[in-house]
């Protein structure tokens, strides 16, 4: 594959990336292939590209996130964009007004990309209707987190060589997890088989209609799995509201070597971070360089976000002068 700097041909037929829903296997493969080239670029000493030179990228985070925000910031900068970070407090009573007002205000500054995280499902879609640039969803409520699913897919594909036919288990708080929703959609689109494992209180209503297998017994659920994806459980949900206590949760749903032994011998462990060690995952498993992909996921995150920004930018209207210089 040729380097992205010399092949600005459109590869992704969408203006925004709001979710995995609606993406074809071709769309996903194109992004993953492009991301592979950025993995190589990011491992060089000179990591700087120019495909987004002259472009302005705004990271608009209504919900705090060190990890995702810095990943997007680095991705934009390595592509040559000017990146501005905006963290909007969530304390304001009129969050909705803030959202639309902020969208209109930012749009007047002529950004090319807005990366948005918001605590409400659908908020990123709403914002995308009010701006004239491309919008990337960095997580909306319990709805979707498409770049997380893409980076997980890239991590798996590089280790296992494929996604098709793999057995993947997603474990923990499925109910509140946008990561779970995006991963279920992506993995199914790419031909993997998905299981969800967790207590009934953390399963969404109607999950049986998502085309996944449901398990409440973790060891049974992990049998024959190639990939074990752990989810973060918010600490406030462990004090009796959804599960009785941390220690009871860890006893039945924390990933330790004993439970992991039910999966395939070469099964790999993933976690979107940040981890609650000793709650959903045992430290020894999380740090096992032979089984855990957790650090690799962070690396793939930057590459995937570069691919997404690049792919969306190729669809933006191009000023002819800028296009000349970019070549």
């Amino acid at each position: 594959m040729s380097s992205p700097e010399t092949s600005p041909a459109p590869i992704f037929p969408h203006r925004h990336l709001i979710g995995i829903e609606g993406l074809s296997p071709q769309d996903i493969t194109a992004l993953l292939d492009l991301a592979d080239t950025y993995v190589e670029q990011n491992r060089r000493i000179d990591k700087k590209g120019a495909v987004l030179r002259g472009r302005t990228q705004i990271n608009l985070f209504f919900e705090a996130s060190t990890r995702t925000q810095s990943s997007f910031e680095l991705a934009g900068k390595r592509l040559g964009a000017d990146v501005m970070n905006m963290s909007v407090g969530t304390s304001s009573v009129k969050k909705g007004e803030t959202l639309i007002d902020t969208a209109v205000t930012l749009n007047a500054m002529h950004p090319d990309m807005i990366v948005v995280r918001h605590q409400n499902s659908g908020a990123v879609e709403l914002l995308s209707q009010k701006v004239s640039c491309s919008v990337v969803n960095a997580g909306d409520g319990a709805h979707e987190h498409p770049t997380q699913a893409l980076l997980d897919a890239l991590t798996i594909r590089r280790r296992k060589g494929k996604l098709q036919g793999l057995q993947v288990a997603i474990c923990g708080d499925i109910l509140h997890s946008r990561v779970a929703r995006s991963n279920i959609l992506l993995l199914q689109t790419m031909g993997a088989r998905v299981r969800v494992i967790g207590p009934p209180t953390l399963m969404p209503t109607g999950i049986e209609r998502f085309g996944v297998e449901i398990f409440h017994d973790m060891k049974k659920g992990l049998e024959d799995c190639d990939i074990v994806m752990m989810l973060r459980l918010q600490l406030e949900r462990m004090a009796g509201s959804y599960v009785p206590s941390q220690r009871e949760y860890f006893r039945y749903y924390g990933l330790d070597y004993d439970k992991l032994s039910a999966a395939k011998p070469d099964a790999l462990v993933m976690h979107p971070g940040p981890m609650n060690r000793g709650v959903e995952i045992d430290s020894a498993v999380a740090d096992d360089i032979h089984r855990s992909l957790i650090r690799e996921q962070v690396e793939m995150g930057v590459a995937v976000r570069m691919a997404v920004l690049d792919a969306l930018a190729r669809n933006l209207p191009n000023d002819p002068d800028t296009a000349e210089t970019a070549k």
Partner: protein
Amino acid sequence: MTRTAFVNARLLDPASGYDQIGNLLVEDGKIVDLGPDLFNDGVPEGVETVECGGKVLCPGLVDMRVFTGEPGAEHRETLALTSQAAAAGGVTTVIVMPNTDPVIDDVALVDFMERRARDTAIVNVHPMAALTKGLKGQEMTEIGLLKEAGAVAFTDGDKAVANAQVVRRAMSYAKLFDALLVQHAEEPALASGVMHEGELSSRWGLPGIPAAAETIMIERDLRLMELTGGRLHIAQISCEASVEIIRAAKNRGLQVTCGVSAAHLQLNELDIQGYRTFFKLSPPLRSEQDRQALVAGLADGTIDVIVSGHDPQDADVKRRPFEEANFGAIGLETLLAAGLALVHSGDVPLARLLDTMTHVPADLLDLGTGRLAAGLPADLILIDTDMPWQLKPEALKSVSKNTPFEDRRFQGRVLRTIVGGRMVFVHGEEG
């Protein structure tokens, strides 16, 4: 003495089953006579004549669930505008909910509403009073005094009265005055979500409201009624299970009635797709199977009344992420048209549809209207049941445009609305 003759009309009185081509004479705001033989010798001199062209002339509609912005939220809708929207929709009597600011929980507020209605509204307006002070669900209001002042029923509007002891005592006490209690049936702890709980709420990542939130509250209140007696009306039901519960309760002889909104008869949870907040209603729009059960319950008489659930909400509280947006949709101007869709689809006969919007709610609230009969106030509507039209938000009377029927094509609309003999709406003449 003003006299108006409606000639060559299809006189339709759902209460008596009367349905004939004939004429009707209004004098000083009252119906004085009607029938096919009236005016056999011609319309007398000095009588204004309205040629009805064989269209349906029936009692004006009674909408027993309307939220208005006055007092307290006039920017959403004044009582005057609410009444104009009602007139355009063929609603001659509007029952307003007590969820205003201040809350209608005191005799002075009932007086205020009646005075504002008399001074500014072009249709009849009667308030329901709060069942509990400040809608807080704790202490009952002065049911006797409020009823004397003109409150037609008692409800906390869009809030459920959650405390079973409060409901039990209010039911028991209300019997003293034969007062009707109206409950918004939603167990609050289970109803913390924003849409129907099911596969779609899970896919869209929105917190759900299970149907059980509604059925638990209905069944609880029915058990309390068995202890206390009295009259209970469930303001709006939304799911199949509620239809079955009400049907069984009626068979047991309980004095329970229930309503459904026109929106819930026409729409389902799928309409929310794309996080469209105009479809965020309380109770929530549920599955297609639930919708069909509601239509069947309406046809077989389990459901007693259709309401608009009219609830004006401005752009500031609707143009938000779905979870943050307010509940509610306007509906006065689409009530009849949305109902007629069920007639055209063959699900409900016209007379049955009109039952649920005329004499049945009028009798529940003891209004003494809702019929075509000599001596009653001339609250009438002339309807073309077939006229095609398309709903354009800019053509709506309401300043709040939160209609779930934007751009919807309807068949059938109101040609004239008459309140107390006065022509308050004439199709094509509104400005």
